[in-house]
């Protein structure tokens, strides 16, 4: 990748995303979670009664489920310290000029409006609990593509919304999906009509600004028959000494013959608990690809999944995790083969540095009747230090014996001879290591649009700086 590629638009020089703006909001809930807060959110959003009930049900389920013990350590996450709803401004802008000045400045610093001009079909921007900006290019809107905040989706397209909402990830799926069901706010609602191809990506950007904030975006994407969509999600927050919390739910319906790619480059500050549920329902001959880049956060638990429901459906999960000191990336994926001739592939690449810890956790399931399913899983871990740690938990459940399942896992270190070779060509130690790491993630980064591949490489470079003791 040429080094001087213009990446200004993506603004990556540092964890300079760590900057913060003065708090400004038109409403901030009390700390902690209560039925009253849930009702308040629903009321402020002027929701129909069914949604209010849905939220309260979500709260009930959340409260009934224990904190999961099987994954990363969540004991430090104190819900009583979290603000569950902060409304930064009134209404959502359709132009950046309609966004309050200080918030607009933040997104300028993050390079979002510039990227929108240059390389995107549309942008949604969330600040604290609400989307503050949403816009899609006119030609796509003219073709019937809907790209709204989730709240507007519910208001403006109630039938379509209700038909799909929470059908892929019901509240009882897991504790944090239940929590999101109760307090969701912000996120996108996307509908791509049959046969329409959105070739240039749409992007959503999530920004948390104030301390102890909980952000609970909810995204619903419906790609109708034969349509195509690439959606990119980015996220950052200031660094605080106390913890913040992000728990999104992303549901995707990939109808017959449609093709959806969902890319996340998660670069939360290192005080963020990031517990996200994302799942796609993939119909006949449709294709879903998740590309999940987890670089930031304190703890991430995130396993994008594909439910391959229609004959010939296929799913792909590519996951990159970078765990530096104090970080635990517990990531992976889930492929459920529920129909014949379905195919899936999971490629996971993790890098652990210092006392950083990465975990691959994956499930491949072939259900009864899903004949001739095939699945391939590859997980590679790269350890940069002696005390870095990686674990692999691959679960495989097969109920048909004609399934073809491949699994491969490797753990490696940067070799002394590799380093000597690169340094003999003039590269400094950390530059040489960075190069090996870049090469390691290349099988995944090559699937990113150029600007994002450059961004990812830059992020890795930044993480690698000073990695030499």
């Amino acid at each position, binding site marked *: 990748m040429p080094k001087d590629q213009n990446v200004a638009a993506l603004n990556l020089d540092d964890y300079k995303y760590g900057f913060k703006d003065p708090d400004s909001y038109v409403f901030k809930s009390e700390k902690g979670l209560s039925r009253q807060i849930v009702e308040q959110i629903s009321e402020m959003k002027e929701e129909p009664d069914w949604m209010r009930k849905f939220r309260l049900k979500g709260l009930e389920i959340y409260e009934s489920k224990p904190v999961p013990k099987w994954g990363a350590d969540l004991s430090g996450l104190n819900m009583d310290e979290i603000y569950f709803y902060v409304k930064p401004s009134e209404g959502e802008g359709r132009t950046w000029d309609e966004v309050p000045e200080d918030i607009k400045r933040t997104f300028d610093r993050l390079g979002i409006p510039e990227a929108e001009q240059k390389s995107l079909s549309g942008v949604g921007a969330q600040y604290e609990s609400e989307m503050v900006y949403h816009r899609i290019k006119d030609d796509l809107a003219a073709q019937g593509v809907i790209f709204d905040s989730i709240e507007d989706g519910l208001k403006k397209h109630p039938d379509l919304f209700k038909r799909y909402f929470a059908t892929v990830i019901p509240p009882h799926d897991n504790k944090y999906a239940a929590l999101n069901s109760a307090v969701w706010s912000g996120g996108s609602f996307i509908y791509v009509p049959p046969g329409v191809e959105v070739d240039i990506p749409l992007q959503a950007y999530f920004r948390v600004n104030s301390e102890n904030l909980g952000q609970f975006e909810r995204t619903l994407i419906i790609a109708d028959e034969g349509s195509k969509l690439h959606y990119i999600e980015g996220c950052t927050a200031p660094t605080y000494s106390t913890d913040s919390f992000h728990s999104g739910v992303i549901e995707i319906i990939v109808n017959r013959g449609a093709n959806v790619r969902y890319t996340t480059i998660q670069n939360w500050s290192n005080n963020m608990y990031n517990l996200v549920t994302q799942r796609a329902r993939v119909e006949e001959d449709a294709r879903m690809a998740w590309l999940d880049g987890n670089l930031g956060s304190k703890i991430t638990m995130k396993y994008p999944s594909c439910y391959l429901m229609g004959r010939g459906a296929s799913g792909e999960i590519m996951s990159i995790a970078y765990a530096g000191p104090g970080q635990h990336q517990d990531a992976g994926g889930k492929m459920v083969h529920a129909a014949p001739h379905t195919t899936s592939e999971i490629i996971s690449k993790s890098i652990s540095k210092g006392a950083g810890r990465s975990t691959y956790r994956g499930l491949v399931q072939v259900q009864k009747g899903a004949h001739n399913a095939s699945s391939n899983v590859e997980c590679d871990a790269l350890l940069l230090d002696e005390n870095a740690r990686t674990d692999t938990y691959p679960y495989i459940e097969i109920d048909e014996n004609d399934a073809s399942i491949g699994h491969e896992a490797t753990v490696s270190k940067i070799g002394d001879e590799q380093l000597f070779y*690169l*340094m*003999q060509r003039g590269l400094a130690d950390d530059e*040489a290591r960075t190069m090996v790491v870049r*090469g390691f993630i290349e099988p995944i980064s090559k699937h990113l649009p150029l600007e994002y591949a450059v961004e990812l490489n830059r992020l890795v470079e930044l993480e690698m700086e000073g990695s030499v003791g």
Partner: protein
Amino acid sequence: MTGKKELLVIEDLHAAVEGNEILRGVDLTIHEGELHALMGPNGSGKSTLAKIVAGHPAYAVTKGSIRYRGEDLLGLEVDERARKGLFLAFQYPSEIPGVTIAQFLRHAKSARTGEDISVLDFYDDLKVAMQKLDVDEKFAERFVNDGFSGGEKKRNEILQMAMLKPNLALLDETDSGLDIDALKIVSDGVNTLHREREHLGVLIITHYQRILNYIQPDFVHVMVDGKIVRSGDRELATHLETEGYESMRGQLTAAGS
């Protein structure tokens, strides 16, 4: 004395790895512009010498000195030596999966020159260098040494040398595994660079004299058991071809007893 400036001066070099002494008092001087050949049987310490000059951390220098253009080399890191124009063509080059030759070379080139070269200039240079070495343009987009044949690896080393324009090139068994056509092309690459850069000093490490038909050395040295036991002109290489190294080994024993 040639009157030329000293490029590399190795004096009484002793080196060990894991407590085993491998080099046992090496003396070698290369002046600017000179072509030297270092020959010797397998295991005699030729690669070790090259790696120590390049700064490989696995070897401990226990005695002696290495000076490069008047500067003490032993105090410098591997990359510092490289940036000062010291180049080692590896006997066994490492694979760097996922990194293309072009990406790698661009980084190396800007490290070597200390400035960011424009993409266009870089690709122009690269193209010319590749043509000279008769490698396909697609070569630059392949991952460094990943799945390369022995011959491809050697060409890649020479391509890098041509791009990085060193002052001193150590070529460790660059001829091994090459068929005669490839050998000619690679030798041509070395000769061309040597013509273009008249200060370039070259140390060709080999245990066959075959390559010396294409690259004509000014001096030939023979290493046996971690010591240079004979030095001479190119006649020495021919002599070795007929007599073998065994006679040298005898000499060493005689000298050492």
